[in-house]
């Protein structure tokens, strides 16, 4: 029998599955948003910033909730919930999740308002709010890639 499979009890699997699924969807949604927003940086296309905004709102944002809630669920199963002896990798996870979630929310507001203004502008022009949102989402994506590494490597 696999030693690693023996380390993790079977009843943890579903919570871990939901957490990893949420994280995959979150990183995928952020990657799609970052790509669309950077490609639309110059503002000569209304479609790309709108795609970026929708990626954040309909993919990344719900996925964050799935990742976060399931993450808390498996943390409690592992006995880390409210524990003083929290490993470093879990701390990295909490910090990136909470701060990243807030930045995603701010980016959704900024890109949403920016896209709305771009819709009214003729000809289309770059929106400062969309650009700020673009930079914030890029920072969030980079932070989550660090979190993915921490969750996998589990540094002490």
């Amino acid at each position, binding site marked *: *029998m*696999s*030693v*690693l*499979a023996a380390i993790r009890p079977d009843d943890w*699997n579903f919570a*871990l*599955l939901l957490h*990893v*699924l949420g994280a*995959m969807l979150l990183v995928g949604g952020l*990657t799609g948003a970052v*790509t669309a927003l950077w490609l639309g940086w110059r503002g000569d296309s209304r479609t790309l910033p709108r795609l970026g905004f929708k990626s954040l709102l309909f993919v990344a944002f719900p996925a964050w909730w799935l990742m976060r809630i399931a993450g808390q669920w498996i943390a409690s199963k592992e006995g880390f919930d409210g524990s003083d002896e929290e490993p470093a990798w879990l701390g990295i996870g909490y910090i990136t999740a909470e701060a990243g979630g807030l930045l995603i929310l701010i980016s959704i507001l900024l890109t949403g308002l920016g896209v709305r203004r771009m819709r009214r502008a003729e000809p289309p022009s770059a929106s400062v709010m969309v650009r700020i949102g673009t930079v914030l989402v890029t920072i969030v994506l980079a932070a989550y890639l660090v979190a993915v590494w921490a969750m996998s490597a589990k540094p002490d």
Partner: protein
Amino acid sequence: MLVIVGTLSTLVFGIWLAIERDEYKVWDGWIIAALVLWAIAAETGRRGGVPYMEARKLAERLAAEGRAEEPSPELRAKLKDRNGMILNGLSSLAVLLLLIDMIYKPGA
């Protein structure tokens, strides 16, 4: 490009991990299942992307002709290609099953 790099990376690093770790063998049932699911996801994803690549080329041609703002029934049809949607759905399903296989490691 991102998809190609990601797809190949998961295969390379996954096989490397299976060889590196003493607890795993590349011929373990759940690892074989993962490789099969990876192949299904990669091929259905590749085939599913064909109509969208054609749509992109058509959109670029329309834009070059100055017809970017005109409705194009041909472009709409390519973006709503049924086979493309089914194949992409199958690819996503294969990835989900692969994730379940990685977490549960059946038979391990």
